[in-house]
């Protein structure tokens, strides 16, 4: 997986490319831990994300919990196949999808 980061003032966009699975989730977890307290909006650009498993969902949930304390978090450009995984897990209701 490739993680592209773009900081624009206090808004951080993280572009996810490839697969967010058991093997790659720790990489994203590290990136999220490193987010400064001055970031008040976190955007995940999922346009090029091809796959997500529960390991990836766990990282998104912990990111959501963290951002709740310092601002907001949104997912953008979610593919249909990924949207379905979000749907069956109820994540569609707890995450903000634009």
């Amino acid at each position, binding site marked *: 997986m490739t993680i592209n980061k773009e900081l624009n003032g206090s808004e951080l966009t993280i572009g996810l490319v490839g697969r967010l699975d058991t093997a790659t989730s720790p990489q994203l977890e590290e990136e999220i831990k490193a987010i400064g307290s001055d970031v008040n909006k976190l955007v995940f650009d999922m346009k090029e994300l091809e796959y997500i*498993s529960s390991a990836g969902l766990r990282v998104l949930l912990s990111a959501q919990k963290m951002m709740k304390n310092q601002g907001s978090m949104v997912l953008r450009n979610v593919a249909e196949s990924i949207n379905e995984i979000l749907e*069956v*897990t109820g994540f569609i209701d*707890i995450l903000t999808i634009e």
Partner: protein
Amino acid sequence: MKELSIEAKKDKLNDVLAFIDTELEIMGCSMKSQMQIDVAVEELFVNIASYAYEGDDGNAFIKIDTDPDNSKATITFIDEGVPYDPLKKEDPDVTLSAEERPIGGLGIFIVKKTMDDVIYTHEDGKNILTIIASTNK
């Protein structure tokens, strides 16, 4: 039917998925079905790798089979570790808010929700978990 015997270690996940995906492609499996099957295979293999042998070395045996018209894939996971029926695990409450949702407990729930059928048996000291999935979703 194709079989794979592989060390039950998380870093073997890519080999497991490559084995499964090769067979699914031969069956003409749709992209959507393939993703759901891959997610289920990942959850079940990682479960075995994490818990079955309690830190000791051990193998996972994975079999994949299809029906005559390639519309369903049957995948079986066998390990010789601690008896464990993942289907007994309580489903997470998917109506809770982000703050209330525990991190974890999702894997087997996704498997149950996306697969047509999930069957667990324990025979001759082996955990046998079978998933049946449509290949044309």
